[in-house]
């Protein structure tokens, strides 16, 4: 469903508030079909916010965005899809493991996508966010 929407009517995301609306519906869907996902996302948020100079905001197209010094580390849509930017070399290395994929719209960039389906995936998502956090911490030191 998410892929269908982003592929065929993704251009509508530029309509103000539409991304938020869609993400709200994803949250409701998760509430009925996989409520644990909402808990895992809370746990990720709690953990990331323990890291120095991190904040969480609502992503412009809906979902939870994590920032380091106001620069985006990554964001999680309410269907459990983590999108984030990594170094291309790190991305290539991780792609070999087969757990992450190209970002659902930005192909051939450092952006990646990863679906959280289980508690194990939540831990992996946290590890990915930590990689992104460290990348920014080196790039944008205090």
């Amino acid at each position: 469903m998410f892929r269908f929407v982003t592929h065929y009517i993704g251009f509508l995301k530029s309509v103000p508030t539409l991304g938020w609306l869609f993400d709200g519906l994803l949250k409701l869907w998760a509430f009925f079909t996989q409520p644990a996902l909402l808990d895992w996302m809370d746990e990720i948020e709690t953990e990331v916010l323990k890291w120095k100079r991190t904040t969480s905001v609502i992503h412009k197209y809906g979902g939870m965005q994590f920032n380091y010094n106001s620069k985006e580390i990554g964001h999680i849509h309410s269907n459990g899809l983590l999108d984030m930017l990594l170094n291309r070399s790190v991305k290539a290395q991780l792609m070999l493991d087969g757990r992450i994929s190209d970002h659902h719209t930005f192909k051939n960039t450092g952006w990646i996508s990863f679906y959280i389906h289980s508690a194990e995936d939540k831990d992996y998502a946290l590890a990915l966010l930590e990689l992104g956090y460290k990348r920014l911490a080196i790039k944008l030191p205090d």
Partner: protein
Amino acid sequence: MLKKNLLTDLKAYGISNLFAVGIIAFDKYVIVDSHVNISGIFVFSEFIIVPLLMGIISAWFWRNAGLTSRELTGKSFINGIITIAMASIFLGEGSICLIIVSPLLFGSIISGALIGRAMFRRNNNTLNTSIVGLMLIVFVADSLSEHHYENMVSDTILVNAPPQQVWKNVVAFKRIKEKNKYWLFKIGMPSPVESTVEGYYLGAKRKCIFSNGYTFDEKIVTYDENKNLTFAITNQPRDPEIMGHIDIEQGQFLLKDNGNGTTTLVGNSWYKLYVFPTWYYDTWAQSITRNVHLRVMEHIKELSETK
């Protein structure tokens, strides 16, 4: 503790819904009636901005409750149910309308609650006031803007019979007995069942009867035998599912002789929408109109192909 939580929930539901009723009433009776003079139109802001603000208001009551995302989503869902119940009671909306509007309400209320939670965690009053103020400005500007939307839906079907045989079934047809296939018709949305006409001539009155007994009164405005039947809708039923939301203005059947004993039958309908945003409601309007066309046209095909 339980009593306190319940009281907080009741305040969150009650105040956010009262806000919605108040601002929509203010919009209808003060802003729109006195400035735009087109009452009855429901605009984008009423379906998106108001529910977003409802979510933000409810999040303000829950700001110290430490709710998890799961709890916040569940409570926002209940808030949406209350809103839908109030729309049914106070606005007299039909069940199909409420099904159609519910994704907008649920999505926006839940998003609003999440935005509100993020806002009140930061506790930046200047920023929070700016966000809510901006939303209210968008609401007023949207309400004062002119809203006008018309569209036409066209469908085509091949009938294995010559136009002369198809024509009589186009002008009027006996009762459709075929079971409904479209999901909205299956759950209770009225579907077309019969069409009657007082005569086969220009200006004749025609009726399109729906499954719940409601009738569209029509008048034939183009009668080009075996080629073009166009009818204007002179009176549409006061059904809460469509009343004030959509006006069907004109219908048309075009018959094209393919020269091989078959006919290409085209069904066209023109309508005016009174609910916005059109990117959402016109998708539904097109889907419903298309399924009304197909139900009638498939029946015409069956009648015409029967020896």
